[in-house]
């Protein structure tokens, strides 16, 4: 489970509850589903979170949720951003694989060390979750004062950018701002940055944590962060890049340029996000905007100009869900007054209004704030209402539903056969289904695909845990021998049996794998012989009323002349014999072992 680090002092500040002790906070957080895991070196809480409430990935978001829980906040709050000044222009050259961009300007931020840390953590956690490790969405935050936005008109005259874009450069409406230009030094009109695609070696910039100029291709090779995220873009023909008038300053989703690095001195920020899905990056942006706004910053919109349409961001619009009163009652299993429902909604940070549906039923029109990315369906609203009510306040009841129970036939058969084997004195075993090729084949002197019992083609695992678990076992005999091998210090006789899973590649199956249960047994003691095994096999055949024959056969695991096929009701289903000394020596055994194995299905 992912964790988020939260400084309790900050939490007290942001909630306005100085009186809360650390312990009380931990208890309140548990109520939100944030479990206290321990403390960081700095004394911050390490909280485990379920990856649905991504708006709680920062101290600001957690504080907001606590304020709703304490009743200090109710309903929906939306910050109102100022009108756009800046524009992000999306060029035709942008890589097809990563076409989307969004952004916002955030002014008058007051970032102390804690605030900056929280912002960085939020960025990292969003990358890890919604951003799918930056593949789906990546965040770049820049010091706005270091950006020189260019006027779109002058941009189109600029030679180097003419290659990258020009046809779509909008003739900028000269902005009559009257005020002196704010943080942006070159904002004479409509400051613009450009999202473009560049050749891997098409330009140079100084990335973060470096002091030399590099091309994007160099970054992927020589920069630590570059190497980490190289896989995301290395297949692209052109790499994503963001330019201002001074040149390339961001190489999403890999790394920002050093020029625009944010510090505690930064007052105004430019937040840009690129990705493979507009909705995803807009939601990530909404969460970041809410967090900065909670610290007293002012939001300012940004115009995003695609070649064929224009967006104004951040998108802080709200969505609504229609939730039926009846459904709330059946899911929670309690009766509620409409007023109670409205109250629960407000305490959840939602807003609800009662309405009548077309069928005349009572429904609620519920407004969802823009940072809630987890509400896909009215059921998700009901979950919020339940949490606000307190699920643990509900009385459990046994459902009044009548059904008849029963066992699957396969499990009944398995059980019956196991009972017989244990009655014969076998110790019932339970081994792993995953095994290595060496254990499954080599050490029993057989090869995959041999036309003998147990030597089916292996179903193999792509990324095994270790070389001991590379395939599914094709028979249970190897597992039984491994147990004998590891218990030579225990007293004999050792009569072991397993009714267990075995699998082999079989193209006639829908999954391509034939799965079956095998009955495997070994008898290990100083006088173990073929007869011992045969006697027990015969008893089993009698118990299940099947016809058993054991014609001689050859099988490299067993001693020639002391090996037979198990033929049940006319069908060859297994093998019985005395294990070959080669196999015994291979497993460090110093006693003879007789054994049999066959398909459980044959007893049906």
């Amino acid at each position: 489970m992912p964790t988020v680090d939260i400084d309790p002092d900050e939490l007290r500040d942001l909630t306005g509850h100085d009186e809360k002790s650390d312990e009380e906070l931990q208890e309140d957080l548990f109520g939100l589903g944030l479990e206290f895991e321990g403390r960081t070196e700095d004394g911050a809480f390490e909280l485990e979170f379920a990856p649905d409430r991504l708006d709680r990935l920062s101290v600001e978001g957690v504080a907001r949720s606590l304020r709703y829980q304490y009743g200090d906040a109710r309903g929906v709050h939306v910050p109102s951003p100022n009108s756009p000044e800046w524009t992000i222009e999306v060029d035709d050259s942008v890589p097809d694989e990563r076409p989307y961009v969004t952004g916002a300007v955030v002014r008058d931020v007051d970032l102390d060390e804690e605030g900056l840390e929280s912002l960085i953590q939020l960025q990292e956690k969003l990358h890890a979750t919604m951003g799918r490790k930056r593949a789906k969405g990546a965040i770049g935050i820049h010091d706005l004062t270091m950006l020189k936005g260019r006027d779109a008109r002058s941009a189109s005259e600029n030679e180097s950018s003419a290659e990258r874009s020009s046809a779509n450069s909008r003739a900028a409406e000269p902005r009559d701002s009257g005020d002196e230009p704010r943080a942006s030094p070159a904002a004479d009109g409509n400051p613009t940055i450009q999202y473009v695609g560049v050749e891997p070696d098409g330009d140079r910039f100084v990335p973060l944590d470096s002091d030399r100029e590099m091309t994007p291709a160099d970054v992927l090779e020589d920069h630590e962060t570059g190497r980490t995220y190289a896989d995301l873009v290395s297949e692209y023909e052109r790499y994503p890049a963001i330019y201002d008038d001074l040149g390339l300053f961001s190489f999403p989703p890999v790394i920002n340029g050093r020029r625009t690095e944010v510090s505690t001195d930064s007052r105004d920020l430019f937040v840009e996000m690129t990705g493979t899905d507009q909705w995803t990056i807009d939601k990530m942006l909404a969460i970041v905007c809410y967090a900065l706004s909670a610290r007293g910053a002012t939001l300012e919109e940004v115009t995003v100009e695609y070649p064929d349409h224009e967006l104004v961001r951040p998108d802080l619009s709200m969505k609504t869900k229609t939730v039926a009163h009846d459904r709330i009652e059946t899911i929670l299993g309690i009766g509620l007054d409409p007023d109670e429902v409205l109250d629960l909604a407000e305490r959840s940070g939602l807003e609800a209004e009662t309405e009548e549906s077309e069928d005349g039923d009572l429904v609620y029109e519920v407004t969802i704030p823009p940072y809630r990315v987890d509400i896909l369906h009215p059921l998700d609203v009901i979950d919020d209402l339940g949490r606000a009510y307190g699920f643990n306040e509900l009385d459990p009841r046994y459902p009044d539903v009548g059904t008849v129970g029963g066992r699957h036939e396969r499990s009944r058969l398995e059980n019956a056969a196991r009972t017989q084997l244990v009655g014969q004195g076998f110790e019932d075993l339970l081994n792993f289904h995953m095994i290595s090729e060496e254990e499954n084949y080599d050490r029993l002197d057989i090869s995959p695909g041999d036309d003998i019992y147990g030597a089916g083609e292996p179903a193999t695992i792509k990324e095994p845990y270790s070389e001991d678990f590379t395939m599914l076992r094709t028979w249970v005999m190897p597992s039984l021998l491994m147990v004998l091998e590891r218990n030579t210090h225990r007293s004999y006789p050792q009569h072991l049996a397993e009714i267990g899973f075995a699998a082999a590649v079989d193209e006639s199956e829908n999954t391509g794998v034939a799965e079956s249960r095998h009955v495997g047994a070994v008898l290990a003691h100083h006088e173990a012989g073929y007869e011992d095994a045969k006697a027990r096999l015969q008893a089993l055949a009698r118990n299940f009323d099947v016809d058993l024959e054991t014609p001689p056969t050859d099988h490299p695991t067993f001693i020639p002349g002391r090996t037979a096929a198990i033929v049940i009701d006319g069908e060859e289903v297994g093998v019985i014999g005395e294990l070959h000394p080669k196999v015994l020596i291979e497993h460090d055994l110093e006693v003879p072992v007789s054994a049999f194995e066959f398909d459980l299905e044959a007893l049906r």
Partner: protein
Amino acid sequence: MQLPSQQVAVLEAASADEGMSVDALAAATDLPPETVTGAVFELETEGLVAVSERVDETVALTDEGRDYVTEGLPEVRLYEAALEAGADADPVSMGRVIGASGLEGGAVDIALSNYARKGYGAIDSGEITADPDADPDADAEANALAALADVEDAPIDSVDVDSDTLESLERRGLLDRHESTVREATLTERAVTELMAGIETAETVGQVTPELLTSGEWEDVEFADYNVEADAEQFEGGNVHILRQTAERVKDTLVGMGFQEMDGPHVDADFWINDCLFMPQDHPARTHWDRFALEQPTHIDELPADLVARVERAHKEGVGEDGEGYHSPWDEDFARALALRGHTTSLSTRYLSGEAVGDLEPPQRYFSVEKVYRNDTLDPTHLLEFFQIEGWVMAEDLSVRDLMGTFEEFYAQFGIEDIQFKPHYNPYTEPSFELFGTHPTTGELVEIGNSGIFREEMLEPLGVDCDVMAWGLALERLLMLMYGFEDIRDIHGTLCDLELLRNTEVTY
């Protein structure tokens, strides 16, 4: 007086003047020593023999001691080599003498540390001298070794070696002493009187035989007493594996609660394992569950086309008027990829969709206790393969209260009370709860399962239009709670210890 035949035999063999050991009596009566011991104790209780105990001390050479019998003591060999080298006249370099003596390794140190002690000469500054008057033939230790060479566990009184020499041999690790307790029986006066009066042998038999029964003789015989308190030889019968026993108990409980058992493939398409559960294809859980993807074969042959279309639509557009899907791509080929199931919810999707046993009408209850596979780090509480207890109830209008009530009922069967519900998040259930129970012995709060009400985005494509509540729990966790096992690897898998499996307490 009448006594059992063994007791009579012992009385007749024993003497009033001199104690006889059990072994001696056994030899005289031709009875097994354990029978004689039994008889002696019986007779002691009757006051017919007096039993005395004496501790016998025996000595025997160790392997090292035996080696010196043939090779000679190291210091003697050193002395002989020194004489050979002329060290009785002038000091000789030690290296030369040792080389000539053929001593190696630890024997060199042994030789040097005993050489001077026993007056064979002196060692000074790397040179060795030999005392011409020393006489190896008079070496007490060497002679003692020779005297002891042929005896095994000789009583210490019987060997002709003085106690100082024995002690020094023992100190040098050339001799072992053993102590054993010998019981000796002597006839009492009463026994002598009784014997003179004549003791009859009572008819006792050891074994009930067919002849005894058919002839009717059993009516006239007395059965020899056994030592019924003694431990018998250890018996190794078969046992059902302890984890299987626990699984059976869980299955019985669930069947009793009206659940039907499910069965299905271990190797399955991601479609059944994840997509049908409304797990977005790019969700971190689909990698952070660390699935075991198959290398060979790679993809399932066929999936029900209409179901695939419905699942895809739910992922992209959501379900219901106000529903919305994931803002993620959905690819059928990705869904067809094969893996070892990471949870048995793949069985639930196969049953709920009608794929397994045809369409199901509510109400229904289903369960399975089957293996799942996760690429987790192996440690005492985590295995790559473990059993999941999967269960679900399908009915109209189920509430979270029904879910909670079902759990309380189920866990109460295993002595786990005070279930707590922590609201939780799963992509496929809403509301969702983690379950916590109190450990019966430690009182600790432990996570015991995960549960919830299946989302409509999951159920609608499967063709289910009522509620389904569901839950999953690791069987091993339940077992560890019930038994207090600390390392699950002792039980499950090829590292298992037979002794533990043979001796584990049964469950019922």
